[in-house]
């Protein structure tokens, strides 16, 4: 089956993104497909590459980037939610006149249409939030 997953809360603060990570891993292990994960609300903050968690804690961003690479998962960060919260890729930074960007490898910024499309194209949709 095809599963779509939404992550609605930020890293470290809420468990939602950790639960989503374990759910996606388990789904793939059972032979399901997870073509896309959509990051909305504070979920967009998962995608910053500037995070430096303590050495004895998990690195949430790196874990997602690695999982996405291994299983070809499309990690989409909502552009409207990202702009409010200060998540930018190089294009957006240039367009907005900002002197830096902070998005990590494996994540891409796109519109809310990608969320609806995911709802249409997958068999099940699961949201992890607060």
């Amino acid at each position, binding site marked *: 089956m095809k599963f779509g997953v939404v992550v609605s809360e930020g890293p470290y603060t809420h468990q939602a993104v950790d639960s989503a990570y374990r759910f996606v891993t388990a789904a793939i292990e059972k032979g399901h497909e997870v073509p896309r994960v959509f990051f909305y609300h504070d979920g967009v903050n998962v995608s910053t590459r500037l995070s430096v968690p303590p050495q004895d804690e998990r690195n949430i961003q790196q874990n997602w980037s690695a999982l996405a690479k291994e299983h070809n998962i499309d990690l989409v960060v909502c552009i409207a*939610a990202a702009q409010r919260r200060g998540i930018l890729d190089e294009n957006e930074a240039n367009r907005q006149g900002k002197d830096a960007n902070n998005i990590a490898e494996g994540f891409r910024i796109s519109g809310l249409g990608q*969320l*609806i499309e995911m709802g249409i194209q997958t068999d099940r949709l699961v949201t992890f939030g607060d």
Partner: protein
Amino acid sequence: MSDTKKFLYVNRKAPYGTIYALEALEVVLIGAAFEQDVELAFLDDGVFQLTKGQKTDGIGMKNFSPTFRALGDYEVTKLYVEKESLDERGLTADDLQEIMWEDEDDDWEEKPSIRIVSRAEMADVMANQDVVLSF
């Protein structure tokens, strides 16, 4: 599976204290372009999103409640509001905004988008969906 899916947006949170209500509305507006069957559910504190007379100057935030009145133009015409949730909060239908849509199949007659339903009817609405998005 048909090409058209039934989408339900579930709103259970009050406006302004958190951003979920506003960002849910942004999804609804974008989603309207995809020509799916769209319904909105308002229960628990979500019913507070629809109160009339919201004035946000004093808190410095944008008043997004007028956007609900524009939903008809996007062919989003079914806003289910749970009666038990209203009752518990001391609210009646009169406390909510008037939200209308024009029915092109009925000589563009104006009809109300808000439908007050019982908890059991709300459970039926929820069970009749392909995709449920919660905010």
